[in-house]
C-alpha cells in the first residue's frame, strides 16, 4: 500500500460511507465504477445508486473502482482480489456486481475488474455461485459489445428498478447445502476469518423472470443472427423476453431520491462539491447528442426542493461549493429563484455556486452577475461547429451574435478566460465550416479587445476540437465517422487558420475517437476484440497516457474484426442496428426525420417552442 500512488483511493473510511452489520444482510452489492476513485466519486449517479441500494433493508451496497495500473500490479503480485472499499472483502463474497458504464473507453476496465475480482469474464463461464453481474449507465443503450460479459443490463434511469430487482433476486437464492461441492470463495482472497460457503443464485430462472421487468435486458435471452455482409439479419427474443426493451425513466424528479447525506472523500477531487440535479433530459435536440436523446423528455426538480436539498447537503458534507448539474443549465425555468435561494444561504458562509453547462445564448447578464457575487469561475461554451450553416445542420441553436454578446458581457464583467469546444467531422462539414471556427475564435478575441475593462491581465482563449463520434439513438446513428487522416487534415487546416497567440488550439487524438466510434456502434462480435485488447494490456483507455492505439489495432486483428466496418460505414435507414432492440423513448421515425432535416439544413424547434412529436412524452 505504501508503494502505490494515492493509497487513500483504495481504503474507504470516508465520512458518511455506509457500514452495515453483515449478519443482517442477505444481498451484498458491489457498485463497480470502471474508472478511478476520483472520477467515480465525482459522479452523481454513483451517489444516487449507492443511496438507493442501501435504503433497502437487507441490502448492503459498497463501492469499488478500477485500480490504477500501479495498484493493479501490486494486487496481481500479492494475489489480492478486488475488494469493496467499505468492508475490504473480496468481490467474490458479494452477490451482485453492479457496473455503472458511462463511456465506451472504459470497457476494458470492466473486464479487468471482473478478472481482478477473480470472477470469470463471460456469463456462460460463471456458475450460480459466482456473483450476478449487472450493468447500467448510458452505455447500456448499446450494450451489445459487452453482452457476453454482463448477465443483465438496466436501461435508462436506475432508481425505480433497483428495489423490484432486489426483491426478485431474493426468490432465487439457493443454499450452499444443496451444492456441497460448490466453488464458493477463492481461498487466496479470504483475508480474515473463515466464511461459510456463499449462497448461490438460480441464475437462469432469475434472469428469465427479470427479463420481463420493464427496462431490463438480458442478452443471453436474445438470439442475434447476421447476414453475410456482417449486418444483422434478426434479433430473436427467447423465453418470453421483451422486444423491444423499453428504457426506464423516473417521471417525477421531485419525489425521487437525492443523496443529501453523501460520502465526502478524504482525498481531494477535481470537483469536490455538492451537486444538485436540476433536471433530466434536454429540450434542445442537438442532433449529435446521445445524452439529450436518451433522457428525453425534460423532468425538472422544483427550485424550492433544490434549495432545500442544496442547503441540507452543504450542511451535511461541509463542502464549500455547490454545482448545478443538468444537460443545459440555462434552460432551467426557475434558474433565478434557484440561484437567489442558494446564494442567500451560501454567500455569508463562503460557499461558491458554480454553473457548468451554460448555453452561450440565453446566458443572461443577470445570471452572471448573481453568480459573480460569490466567485468567478472560467467560462466554457460549446458552439460545436464553426459556421451557422453547420450549426443548423446539427440543430445547435446558437448564433454567432448570441455567442459574441455573451462574451461581451463576460469580458466586461471581468472574465478573462474562455474555452470553446468544437467537433470536426460532423455530417456535411466543409473546409469553409472549419475556417469558420478560426474566424469565430478571432471574433471572440476582438470582442475581448473591445469590451475588456482591464486588458493588462491579458486573455486566454482555448479552442478544442475532437473528432465526431456518431452515437446510437441519435439522428446521426447511421452516419460514418471521418477517417483519422481526414481529421488530421482538418486539424492542420484549422491550425494554419489560427493566427493569434492569444488563442490556444488543442485537438483531441482521433485514435481514441476512432476506437470509441467502433465500440459505440458495435455488435456482439466486438466482445472478442474487447477481450483481446484487455489481454494485450489495454486499461484505462479514456486516459490518453494509458491508451495505446496499436494495442487496439492488434486486438481487432486478432479478433478478426474490421473496425472500419463499424466506424466508417454509412448505414441504411432500414438496417437492423445492434441497438435496435432498445427503445430509447424517441421513435425511429423521429430520428430519420431529424437526419433528413439535418441534410436539408432545417432546424427543429426545441420542446418549448413546439413539440416535434419525438415520442418521448408518451
Amino acid at each position, binding site marked *: *500500500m*505504501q*508503494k*502505490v500512488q494515492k*493509497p*487513500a483511493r*483504495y*481504503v*474507504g*473510511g*470516508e*465520512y458518511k*460511507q455506509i457500514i452495515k452489520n453483515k449478519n443482517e444482510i442477505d444481498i451484498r452489492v458491489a457498485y463497480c465504477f470502471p474508472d478511478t476513485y476520483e472520477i467515480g466519486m465525482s459522479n452523481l449517479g454513483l451517489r444516487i445508486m449507492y443511496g438507493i441500494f442501501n435504503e433497502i433493508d437487507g441490502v448492503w451496497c459498497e463501492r469499488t473502482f478500477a485500480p490504477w495500473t500501479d495498484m493493479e500490479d*501490486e*494486487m496481481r503480485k*500479492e*494475489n*489480492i482480489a478486488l*475488494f469493496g472499499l467499505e468492508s*475490504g472483502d473480496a468481490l467474490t463474497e458479494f452477490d451482485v456486481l453492479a457496473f455503472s458504464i458511462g463511456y465506451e473507453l472504459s470497457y476494458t476496465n470492466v473486464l479487468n475488474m471482473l478478472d481482478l475480482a477473480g470472477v470469470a469474464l463471460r456469463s456462460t463461464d460463471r456458475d450460480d455461485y459466482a456473483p450476478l453481474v449487472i450493468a447500467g449507465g448510458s452505455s447500456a443503450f448499446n450494450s451489445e459489445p459487452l453482452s457476453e460479459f454482463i448477465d443483465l443490463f438496466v436501461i435508462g434511469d436506475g432508481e425505480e428498478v433497483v428495489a423490484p430487482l432486489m426483491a426478485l433476486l431474493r426468490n432465487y437464492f439457493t443454499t450452499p447445502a444443496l451444492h456441497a461441492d460448490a466453488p464458493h470463495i477463492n481461498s*487466496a482472497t479470504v*483475508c*480474515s476469518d473463515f466464511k461459510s460457503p456463499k449462497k448461490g443464485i438460480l441464475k437462469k430462472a432469475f434472469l428469465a423472470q427479470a427479463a420481463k421487468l420493464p427496462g431490463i435486458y438480458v442478452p443471453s435471452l436474445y438470439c442475434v443472427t447476421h447476414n453475410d455482409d456482417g449486418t444483422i439479419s434478426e434479433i430473436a427474443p427467447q423465453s418470453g423476453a421483451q422486444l423491444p426493451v423499453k428504457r426506464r425513466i423516473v417521471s417525477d424528479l421531485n419525489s425521487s431520491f437525492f443523496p443529501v447525506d453523501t460520502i*465526502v472523500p*478524504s*482525498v*481531494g477531487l477535481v470537483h*469536490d462539491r455538492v451537486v444538485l440535479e436540476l433536471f433530466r433530459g434536454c429540450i434542445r435536440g442537438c442532433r449529435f447528442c446521445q445524452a439529450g436523446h436518451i433522457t428525453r423528455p425534460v423532468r425538472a426538480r422544483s427550485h424550492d426542493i433544490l434549495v432545500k436539498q442544496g442547503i441540507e447537503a452543504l*450542511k*451535511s*458534507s*461541509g*463542502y*464549500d461549493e455547490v454545482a448545478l448539474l443538468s444537460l443545459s443549465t440555462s434552460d432551467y425555468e426557475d434558474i433565478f429563484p434557484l440561484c437567489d435561494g442558494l446564494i442567500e444561504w451560501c454567500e455569508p458562509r*463562503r460557499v461558491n455556486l458554480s454553473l457548468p453547462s451554460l448555453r452561450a445564448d440565453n446566458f443572461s447578464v443577470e445570471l452572471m452577475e448573481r453568480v459573480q457575487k460569490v466567485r468567478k469561475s472560467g467560462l466554457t461554451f460549446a458552439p460545436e461547429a464553426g459556421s451557422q450553416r453547420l450549426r443548423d445542420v446539427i440543430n445547435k441553436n446558437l448564433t454567432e451574435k448570441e455567442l459574441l454578446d455573451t462574451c461581451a458581457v463576460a469580458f466586461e464583467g471581468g472574465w478573462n478566460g474562455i474555452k470553446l469546444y468544437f467537433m470536426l467531422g460532423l455530417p456535411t462539414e466543409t473546409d469553409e465550416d472549419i475556417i469558420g471556427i478560426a474566424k469565430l475564435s478571432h471574433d471572440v478575441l476582438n470582442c475581448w479587445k473591445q469590451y475588456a475593462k482591464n486588458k493588462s491581465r491579458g486573455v486566454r482563449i482555448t479552442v478544442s476540437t475532437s473528432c465526431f463520434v456518431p452515437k446510437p439513438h441519435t439522428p446521426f446513428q447511421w452516419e460514418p465517422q471521418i477517417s483519422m487522416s481526414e481529421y488530421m487534415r482538418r486539424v492542420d487546416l484549422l491550425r494554419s487558420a489560427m493566427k493569434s497567440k492569444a488563442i490556444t488550439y488543442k485537438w483531441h487524438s482521433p485514435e481514441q475517437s476512432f476506437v470509441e466510434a467502433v465500440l459505440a456502434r458495435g455488435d456482439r462480435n466486438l466482445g472478442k476484440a474487447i477481450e483481446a485488447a484487455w489481454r494485450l494490456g489495454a486499461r484505462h483507455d479514456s486516459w490518453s497516457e494509458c491508451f495505446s492505439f496499436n494495442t487496439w489495432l492488434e486486438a481487432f486483428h486478432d479478433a478478426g474484426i474490421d473496425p472500419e466496418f463499424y466506424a466508417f460505414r454509412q448505414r441504411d435507414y432500414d438496417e437492423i442496428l445492434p441497438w435496435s432492440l432498445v427503445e430509447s423513448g424517441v421513435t425511429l421515425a423521429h430520428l430519420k426525420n431529424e437526419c433528413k432535416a439535418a441534410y436539408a439544413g432545417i432546424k427543429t424547434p426545441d420542446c418549448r417552442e413546439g413539440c416535434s412529436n419525438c415520442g418521448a412524452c408518451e
Partner: protein
Amino acid sequence: MQGSRHPIAGKGAAIAALASSQYLRCNNRGAGIDILTKLRLRYSKTDNAKYISHLDLAAAMRRAFIRAGLELEYSKGFNPHPYISVAMPLSVGMQSVCELMDVGLKAQVEMADLPGQITKYLPSGLEISEAYEPLRKFNELKWLEISGILYYDTVPQDICQKLKTRFCASNIEVLKKTKRGMGTIDIAEYVRDIEFSGTSEVYISAKISAQEPTIKPENILDALGGDFQVLAPDYAVFKRIEAFDSDMLIFR
C-alpha cells in the same frame, strides 16, 4: 503491501499490536466555557486515515467544523481561508496518536465537549482526544516518541541485543537529505531511549528529534546499512506516540 494480507493494513495484526500500545491522556485542564480565538486540538490519525495527505487533512478538519455548525476564523483578504495550522507534518502512511493542530474558532465552546463533538463528523481513523489553550508555540516541540514494528522474513539471532548495541554507538552516521542536498549526519544524539523487544517481530520504541534536525523513522532504518545490513528489517511500520519539549515534558 505485504504478504497476501488484506491491503487495508489497518485491519492487520500489526496495527492491532500497535494500537494496544497507545495511551490516551486524561487531562481535563481547560474544561469550562471559554471564548477563544485559538485552541489546540490533540488528535489521532490511525487506520485508513493514515493515508490522508497533509493537505486533505486540513480540508477534513475544516469540513468537520462546518458539519458541527462551528464557525472557524478566516483570514482576511482576497481568498480567505480558515486558520488551521498543523504541527510536524506526518508522512502519508504513518499513524499517530499525538497529532496537534491549532485552529481559530469564532464560537463559544465547551472545551471538554469539543473533541466528541467534532470527532463524530470526521472520517474514520481521525479522532480528537483533547482541546485546550496552547501553552507553547509549535517551534518549541523538540522530541517525538515513536514506536514501531520491524518485520523480518527470517529473524536474525539475538536481534534485539544487536540492534541495541548498534544504537548505543557514540557515532551513528547516516545519509540524510538536507537543504543543500544529500549529506551525512550523526544521529546518535538525536535518538534517545531506544529500546527493542520481541522475538518473531521486533518492537521498537525511541524518542527522536522533531526539529532541527528533523529525524524520521526512516533515518533510524538508514543506520542499518553497510556493516549492519543483516539487522535491516524487510518491512517496518511506525507510529507517533507522544510529543515533548526540550525538557522532555509533554508538549502542550
